[in-house]
């Protein structure tokens, strides 16, 4: 069917094209209504790093980057709530690289990841809005000679009702700029919220439905050329030979530039560049990693997992409790290397001059991006301008700057703007991969079927040690046992250790859901094993271990009720549950599937119950749950990256399958009202997927999946 869509036959089956019709009234956030007062040059009011009021209107600076998760809208809502403006009165702008102003206080970097954005910004962005409002109101009150407390603000207009006067923010911006930034910034009680908690429309969507949004890959500059590249298929490999003349002979090719391990062809357009690369007749020296294979890595990991690791949790007595237990369980779980494969391939546009450089890219780490270009060009970082663009997905891939570094090295001596675009194949085969994890787990249950002791050893690469070395302390990667060492359940005898194992020939990276995605597959599958081994209902077994965790219990009960957990399933159907506390959010997932022998497992219905504390935008929470769980389910169904002879075996979406609409289940999301601090939502759904899927397969078939992806298991 998919092939049909592009067939010649379809081309010729043309129907008359409908013409005319209404034009959508869509607007960019920046084109919206402004306060009408004429203001002069001097009216620039920048009370803090996040708010700017000037001739362009009200601009909110976004400390976190928009990768599709809706953070531009949520961040704007936090500020607009206290600034007392509506979302259609503001424009939003990406923060420039500036660690002092825009560091994420949880990640200790100007970075967007780990579902921390709202948790980091919950207080500081509301304070930024409130602080600006206090100064603006103060300026108006001073001009009128009235107490500020007698003024009120609505939609960016300050009113003094006793005298019937009003002034817009723009009219008092210049005055406000001379006032002191308040030291005390009282914030609204949640009961007073008018914007937070509403399904406010996303600010970035209008430009995403009419094709006008410029992603990094859409950058166009005067005099710009287009480039694509070929990179050594094996990490550490080098170019052995190439026919540069043949590439230069291709019509539209301008230049060929190279480093030891990569070559880029620059041309008038991507097609010329691509034909140029094809014409190079490249041969490669494989280098030291020529014998790397998935099987060899796995064998090494198996060996490594037999030795003790660094102890992460030791309650004393876990091993003893298991030894004495009535029911003992031991298992090995395996989670494969994964690619991020955001739909917008890696790209980077650079204009490098003698004394400055400018970069257009979508990055989750603008300061690192700036530094990468500075180092490659020898320019000081302040001479590198970063134009951060909205991203066509990231999922952790754009937390690394290897591609920007590579682009800057290749284009170092080119003095006109060049847009370098990775083909899907070069992108996928040179991704930084989610680590392979090898987990050894054991548990003991007593006569009454109660969990009395549990051990968990994770063997795998530490992304933290590479990406944030200061957070890798005493050999412990806090991410690697997230959701494994500590669980929502009542547990008193847990032993957890970590064996760091760095595979040769590849680089590992953050991937959506990070440690939780891997560990919850293992934990929630193993919890299911415990329930079945002792003849207990999986929801009931979990419920009994949640005596001290009312929020976790509440989402579990809600999901069970909405999914109809107790209802009997027809033959061939399966139902699996997964429960988690990750990213400071509670989430229960119940998945219904159908298994027809010889056919792909069919995902039917996914029910999610979430308590992520105070909700900024319930529609964004729902969207992240829907998308997150499908991202995780598709991955668990189909995806693994494997290596042969040091090179990645997968190359594009034909052999690295992405879940399609005809394979997607129905998704229902139920949200628990809460007054707790906000938790993260961007990754929770992904982490909730694989465990529920494996448990549903067990429910349907009696077969336990302990190794992903599912497509490699005979179900």
């Amino acid at each position, binding site marked *: 069917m998919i092939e049909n869509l592009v067939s010649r036959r379809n081309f010729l089956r043309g129907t008359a094209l409908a013409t005319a019709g209404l034009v959508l009234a869509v607007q960019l956030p920046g084109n919206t209504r402004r306060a009408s007062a004429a203001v002069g040059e001097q009216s620039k009011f920048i009370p803090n790093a996040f708010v700017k009021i000037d001739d362009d209107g009200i601009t909110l600076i976004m400390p976190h980057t928009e990768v599709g998760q809706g953070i531009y809208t949520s961040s704007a809502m936090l500020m607009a709530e206290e600034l007392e403006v509506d979302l259609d009165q503001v424009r939003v702008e990406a923060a420039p690289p500036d660690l002092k102003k825009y560091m994420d206080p949880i990640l200790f970097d100007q970075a967007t990841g780990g579902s921390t954005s709202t948790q980091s910004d919950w207080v500081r962005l509301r304070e930024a809005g409130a602080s600006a409002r206090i100064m603006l109101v103060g300026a108006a009150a001073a001009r009128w000679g009235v107490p500020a407390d007698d003024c009120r603000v609505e939609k960016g207009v300050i009113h003094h009702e006793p005298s019937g006067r009003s002034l817009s923010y723009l009219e008092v911006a210049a005055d406000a700029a001379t006032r002191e930034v308040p030291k005390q910034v009282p914030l609204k009680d949640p009961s007073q919220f008018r914007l937070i908690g509403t399904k406010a429309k996303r600010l970035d969507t209008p430009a995403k439905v009419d094709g006008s949004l410029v992603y990094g890959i859409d950058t166009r500059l005067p005099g710009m050329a287009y480039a694509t590249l070929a990179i050594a298929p094996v990490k550490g490999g080098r170019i052995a030979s190439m026919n540069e003349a043949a590439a230069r002979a291709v019509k539209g090719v301008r230049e060929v530039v190279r480093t030891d391990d990569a070559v880029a062809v620059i041309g008038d357009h991507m097609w010329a560049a691509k034909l140029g690369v094809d014409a190079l007749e490249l041969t490669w020296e494989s280098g030291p990693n020529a014998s790397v294979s998935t099987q060899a890595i796995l064998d090494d990991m198996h060996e490594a997992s037999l030795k003790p690791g660094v102890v992460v949790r030791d309650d004393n007595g876990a091993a003893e409790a298991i030894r004495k237990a009535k029911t003992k369980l031991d298992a090995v779980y395996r989670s494969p290397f994964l690619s991020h494969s955001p739909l917008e391939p890696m790209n980077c546009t650079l204009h490098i001059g003698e004394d400055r450089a400018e970069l257009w890219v979508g990055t989750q780490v603008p300061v690192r991006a700036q530094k990468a270009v500075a180092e490659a060009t020898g320019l000081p970082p302040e001479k590198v301008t970063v134009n951060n663009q909205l991203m066509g997905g990231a*999922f952790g891939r754009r937390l690394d700057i290897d591609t920007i570094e590579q682009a800057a090295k290749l284009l170092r001596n080119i003095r006109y703007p060049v847009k370098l675009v990775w083909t*899907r194949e070069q992108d996928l085969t040179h991704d930084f991969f989610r680590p392979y994890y090898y987990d050894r787990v054991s548990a003991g249950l007593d006569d009454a079927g109660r969990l009395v002791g549990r051990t968990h050893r994770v063997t795998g690469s530490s992304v933290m040690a590479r990406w944030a070395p200061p957070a890798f302390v005493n050999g412990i990667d806090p991410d690697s046992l997230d959701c494994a060492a500590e669980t929502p359940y009542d547990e008193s005898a847990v032993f957890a250790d970590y064996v760091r194992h760095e595979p040769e020939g590849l680089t590992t990276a953050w991937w959506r859901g990070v440690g939780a995605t891997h560990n919850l597959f293992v934990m929630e599958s193993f919890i299911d094993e415990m329930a079945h081994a002792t003849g207990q209902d999986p929801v009931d077994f979990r419920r009994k271990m949640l005596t001290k965790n009312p929020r976790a219990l509440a989402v579990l009960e809600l999901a069970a009720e909405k999914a109809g957990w107790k209802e009997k399933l027809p033959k061939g159907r399966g139902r699996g549950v997964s429960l988690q506390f990750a990213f400071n959010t509670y989430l229960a997932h119940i998945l219904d599937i159908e298994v027809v022998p010889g056919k792909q497992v069919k995902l039917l219905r996914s029910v999610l119950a979430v308590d992520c504390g105070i909700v900024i935008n319930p529609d964004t929470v729902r969207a992240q749950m*829907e998308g997150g769980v499908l991202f995780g389910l598709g991955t668990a169904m189909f995806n693994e990256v494997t290596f042969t002879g040091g090179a990645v075996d997968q190359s594009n979406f034909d052999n690295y399958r992405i879940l399609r609409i005809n394979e997607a289940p129905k998704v229902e999301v139920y949200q628990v009202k809460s007054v707790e601090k906000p938790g993260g939502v961007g990754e929770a759904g992904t982490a909730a997927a694989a465990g529920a899927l494996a448990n549903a397969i067990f429910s349907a078939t009696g077969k336990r999946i302990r190794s992903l992806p599912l497509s490699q298991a005979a179900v």
Partner: protein
Amino acid sequence: MRKLTINGQVHEVDMPDDMPLLWVLRDVLGLTGTKYGCGIAQCGACTVHLGGIAVRSCQTTMDMIEDMPIVTIEGVSNTPIGAKVQAAWLDKEVVQCGYCQSGQIMSATALLTENPKPTDTDIDDAMAGNICRCGTYVRIREAIHSVNV
């Protein structure tokens, strides 16, 4: 010189016969709403209408176009159904990263033009060629059902 009619406008381009329409649109004409995702007709991000039919512009070369009119995401709002699809996309807040959505909207518009009341199976058949990495499928389905052609 070849004449291409794109969104009702005639463009003269001098590009090789085997050059995919995708790169002519994006790099030669500056119509960057049509996206590159895979280059092998697996993801649908590059979907445009050629003679009213949804095609993958990464596989549609210059010599295949003849005199058929081309509509891209930049021009789809000029068709009544395209405009309704875009409105439905906004109403249902379908979009996340948005990178696939040009292609999704082009495929959905082609579907609804031919079949005003598609069933879930019809939607599966027409839309399975369009990957959404963010997983907005639930809302794509809702949005298509909500369009009143």
